[in-house]
């Protein structure tokens, strides 16, 4: 269970990215985060695993307070939270398999991993995760030789490598075509339903929200303006969230 309480993030210079955001996510839920670009979706997701430090507020996860955790504790917390990014964020010059193995960095002994020695079971797990996303034959190629859709699948495999209890997906399909978008979302749906992984996924297109999400929250200018199932987003709520000139696309 993820509890976000009065989360506020103000950047140096005064920009208010998030203001007093509070919500709860029960374990195993697929939560969609929607809103205009710049409304705070990325900031919110990054505050949850503290890639960005919140200015105020608390984030509790399974009872543990993420916001005041120490460095060592953050390591143990972060390794249970997988993250998928809009621009894939693979290390281009490294091989695909190395990118997937990065998912186990939170678990393996730091000294041995420095010299690139991973335990055999981790290697086998990495290959099986690649198999799950259908990329076993690309395992030893350089990551930047893959197409966009393939790279995002590697990103998903890397996140799954962590055996996460929660996955944060920051606009994972924004750079992909509709077919690829659905296939990536289906992987997220698979791990959500089969492995009971909580998924927080920020999305732009409402058809994906309707199809995959159990619940939705909407941000506007850093404030939480809507919380509820996707079916409740009628035209009025849509204009609330996206503004008067917005039109539905698809």
């Amino acid at each position, binding site marked *: 269970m993820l509890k976000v309480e009065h989360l506020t993030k103000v950047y140096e210079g005064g920009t208010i990215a998030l203001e007093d955001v509070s919500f709860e996510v029960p374990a195993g839920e697929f939560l969609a985060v929607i809103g205009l670009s710049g409304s705070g979706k990325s900031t919110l997701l990054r505050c949850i695993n503290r890639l960005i430090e919140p200015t105020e507020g608390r984030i509790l996860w399974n009872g543990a307070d993420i916001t005041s955790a120490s460095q060592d504790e953050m*390591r143990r917390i972060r390794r249970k939270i997988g993250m998928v990014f809009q621009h894939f964020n693979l290390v281009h*010059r490294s091989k695909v398999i*190395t990118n997937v193995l990065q998912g186990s*960095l939170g*678990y393996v002994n730091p000294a041995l*991993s420095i010299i*690139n020695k991973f335990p055999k079971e981790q290697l086998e797990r990495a290959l099986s995760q690649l198999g799950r996303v259908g990329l076993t034959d690309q395992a030893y190629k350089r990551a930047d030789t893959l197409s966009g859709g393939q790279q995002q699948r590697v990103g998903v495999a*890397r996140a799954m490598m962590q055996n996460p209890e929660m996955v*944060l997906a920051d606009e994972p399909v924004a750079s992909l075509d509709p077919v690829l978008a659905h296939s990536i979302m289906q992987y997220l749906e698979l791990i959500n339903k089969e492995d009971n992984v909580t998924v927080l996924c920020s999305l732009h297109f409402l058809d994906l929200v309707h199809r995959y999400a159990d619940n939705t929250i909407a941000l506007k200018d850093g404030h939480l303006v809507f919380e509820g199932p996707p079916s409740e987003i009628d035209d009025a709520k849509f204009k609330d969230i996206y503004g008067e000139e917005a039109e539905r696309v698809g």
Partner: protein
Amino acid sequence: MVALAIIAGVVVYAYGFSATNVDISQIKAETRLAQLTRVVRALARPDLVTYERTDTNTDAPIYMPCPPGGFTPPKVDQYSRHITIEPACVNPGDPITVHGENFSPNARVTLYMVPPSGDLNLILGQQFVADETGSFTETLDTRERASEEQQTIRAITREPIGSIFHPATIDTFDSQGNAITVKSPRISEAAKVTWVKIIQTVFIALLATTLGVFIAIPMSFFASRNLMKDIKIPLIKLALQIIAFPVGMVLGALAAGEAHRLSLNLTSNLALTWLGVLVLPALMLVAIRWALPAVEDEEPSPGVRLARAMVLVIAAVAGVVVLFLVGNLLMRFGVWLAPKLGSFFFLGDFSTTIGDILIAVITFVTALMAAAVLANLAGRFAVWLRAHASDSVVRPISLPLSAVAGAGMMLLLGQLISWLYKIQDPVKIIWVPGAIGALLGLGLAARVYKKEAVNVGLTVYYAARTLFNGIRSIEPLVMVIVFAVWVGLGAFAGALALSLHTVAALAKLYSEQVESILTGPLEAVQATGATRLQTIVYAVIPQIVPPYISFTLYRWDINVRMSTIIGFAGGGGIGAILQQNIRLLDYRAASVNMLAIAVVVASMDYLSSRVRERIV
């Protein structure tokens, strides 16, 4: 506006001409031009081969007196060595003008008259010297020996034997009077020395670049703002670590001393030494495997942690002993091997030197590592303290600790001042620095009282940047003077000076690359729970490898150029020989040096551009 700029420009350049003593009359002065011609001509004739010389005859026919119908001498080949006589026939005793060409430059020429019998050389006039092109024109009187047959005017000079395509072999005597056989032409002394020295020069560049790269790579991370800016340490942790560091160094040095004593017991016996080198690492491996498990699912208990720590300490001491033993073995191996290898003796010497370096360096490195470990432990203690004690306890403690840490650092500075300026007064080297340090520590503690985290990362960043900028602004040519005093004049000093400058220059270039990496992969690796070091290895390093290689090659090119001239200031290599030749006015030998430099630099440039194509 423009007019003002032009006037300002004129004034500036006018002053510049005056300040740099621009003097056109010097450029046109006759004596200067003559000297210039001499030097340039010498430079155009590099002293690559030496010829043996022997007395050689150059003949031309003459009739004394003129035969009826006059005498037209046969045509001579203008390009080979010859003399022509004007007029071609005279009355005995009359003067003739002898014109010679293609002799050796500045050759000593003696002219003779040879009667028809050919068995006498009658000297004419005095010995004289041909000009730089090997030409001469002499007017002198003939002897009063008439004949109806053809007589000969002969020029005798020392001319070189043999040619490049048809070398000759000569028996002669060396400087001590021993009989030796030499080839003519043969490679000159200047060429031989140049060859040896240019090889040395290339290796100066190689060693300097290698050493520089190794040190610059870790240093560059300290000079990268994006890596350093987030490193914030709570004050109490910082203070405890600063206090623990010198304590650790002392303990480490003591431990290394003990290990050395232990190893000396073993090294007296070769068999025991080998035993130690083989058995100890095996034991260490077992110990480390046990102490560092591959995957940690649960947090280990304090008892297990303590046991692991002790095992690691013992393994570390064993490791130091092994290193001493290895150093000893390397030295023994080198000493045994060198005489057996003939011209590859340097492999044996290399082994000995490496062993020597290893032994000398072990104590220092062990002290550093012990300091790092102790500082790490102190840091963990501080973290534990902050987690288990309330703020009202932790904050007041951090004040005196900070004062002690500050005083400690300033005391080290005091020691340095005492050594540099030979001050023994305890007030100046202990009390005053200590007091200043304590005050600074308290000041820092007061400033971060509320937030408690000191931005150590940025401080280290600024310190590193300033240090490298400082070192970079001193040319290696100047630095080599200091190194020459330390390790002696020669190539070693040159290599050390170059590597110091290389470290500073490369650290800056490398760190600029680190600062421009994509942050996305960095975020992604951090999000998996990786430690800072893991993040650097998996997200930063793969992104910076191609520019690092590129800059390394760039620096290699620069070092090759610098190593050719570092000899001018005492750094060995071909620069030393070039400077010597110029001082001795031996421009022909200098020309050989310059030729070698040009060839080496050009070929190294070409090589590195090929490597760059393949790798980057």
